[in-house]
């Protein structure tokens, strides 16, 4: 992983529209960002789309990066993209509810959607049992590797709240996994 001066040089190259530097950024961050999207969406197809969207958005927004933690800045964009996806999903769900009058039909569709999701690994199943906000916090902390202070700032909440939620979430995950 590129650190310090190397990363600063690459980011600077991106600001000068250097395609090679963007390519390096994709290599450095794609794995972590993909993991973040996958753990939150539980679907490889959606994670593919969100990851593509993230780097295309990065090209558009790189001019607005004014220094500071690049990881924090990038994961803030990733977090916004995930929330946009959730909002779009919510809209689609509402549209479906309007279109379908029978409750059984809705259940059937939702069940098929669930089965399409790749709930293959054990951790993903257990993560799904945590509440959405805690799951998002744990994933943000794990994949962005940001400090708690940065995460609290990003989530616009006191650091004590972030700390408490993270502790409760990871403790619960341990209990669910059984170790």
């Amino acid at each position, binding site marked *: 992983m590129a650190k310090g001066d190397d990363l600063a040089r690459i980011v600077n190259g991106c600001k000068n529209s250097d395609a090679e530097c963007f390519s390096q950024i*994709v*290599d450095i961050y794609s*794995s972590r960002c993909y993991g973040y999207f996958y753990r939150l969406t539980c679907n490889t197809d959606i994670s593919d789309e969100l990851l*593509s969207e993230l780097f295309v958005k990065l090209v558009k927004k790189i001019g607005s990066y004014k220094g500071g933690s690049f990881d924090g800045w990038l994961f803030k964009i990733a977090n916004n993209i995930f929330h946009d996806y959730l909002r779009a999903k919510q809209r689609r769900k509402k549209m479906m509810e309007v279109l379908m009058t029978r409750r059984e039909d809705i259940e059937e569709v939702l069940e098929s959607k669930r089965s399409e999701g790749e709930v293959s690994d054990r951790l993903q199943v257990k993560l799904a049992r945590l509440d959405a906000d805690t799951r998002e916090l*744990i994933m943000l902390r794990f994949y962005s590797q940001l400090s708690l202070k940065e995460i609290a700032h990003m989530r616009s909440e006191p650091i004590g709240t972030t700390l*408490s939620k993270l502790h409760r979430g990871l*403790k619960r995950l341990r209990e669910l996994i059984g170790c």
Partner: protein
Amino acid sequence: MNGPEKEYLKELFERFVGTEQADEAVEDILRGEQILRDNPAPEPGKELIDSIKSQVTWSLLRRREHIRRMRYEAVAAVAAAVILLVTIWTGLFERDGGKSKRMYASMVPRAIWDSDDIASDDPHIASLTAEVEQIENELLTLQEGETGGNGERAVSELEMELAVINSDLLL
């Protein structure tokens, strides 16, 4: 998580709970994060990465093109503004300086314009006045029958006079 980070986390917890509870909380977090490390998420495929890189390159090209177009538009706008300003400024300068290149011809000669008695100072008017007076006299003569019945000659002369006046006026 490395040593300093663990210490920082412990210090943070100690702000809210006792030392013993802080140790437990840090341990919970460390073990929880270890579970995440032991169960890694899938990696993005090589095809996806290649596709993203080409999308990024394409976006960069479009961005460059957009910037270039914006520059051209800015230069064109500035050029248009300069041309407009120069046109307006040139027009104002000519009017204000009184150095217009347009020529104006006076229809009335200066001597006539300044005269107090146009009827005598303008030779054309003076001549016309004399001829009108002559015609008046001839008409009076005709009416009084002084020509002794030679009316046709008098009318011919009158017509000739009128023709002369007409040609003078046309000139």
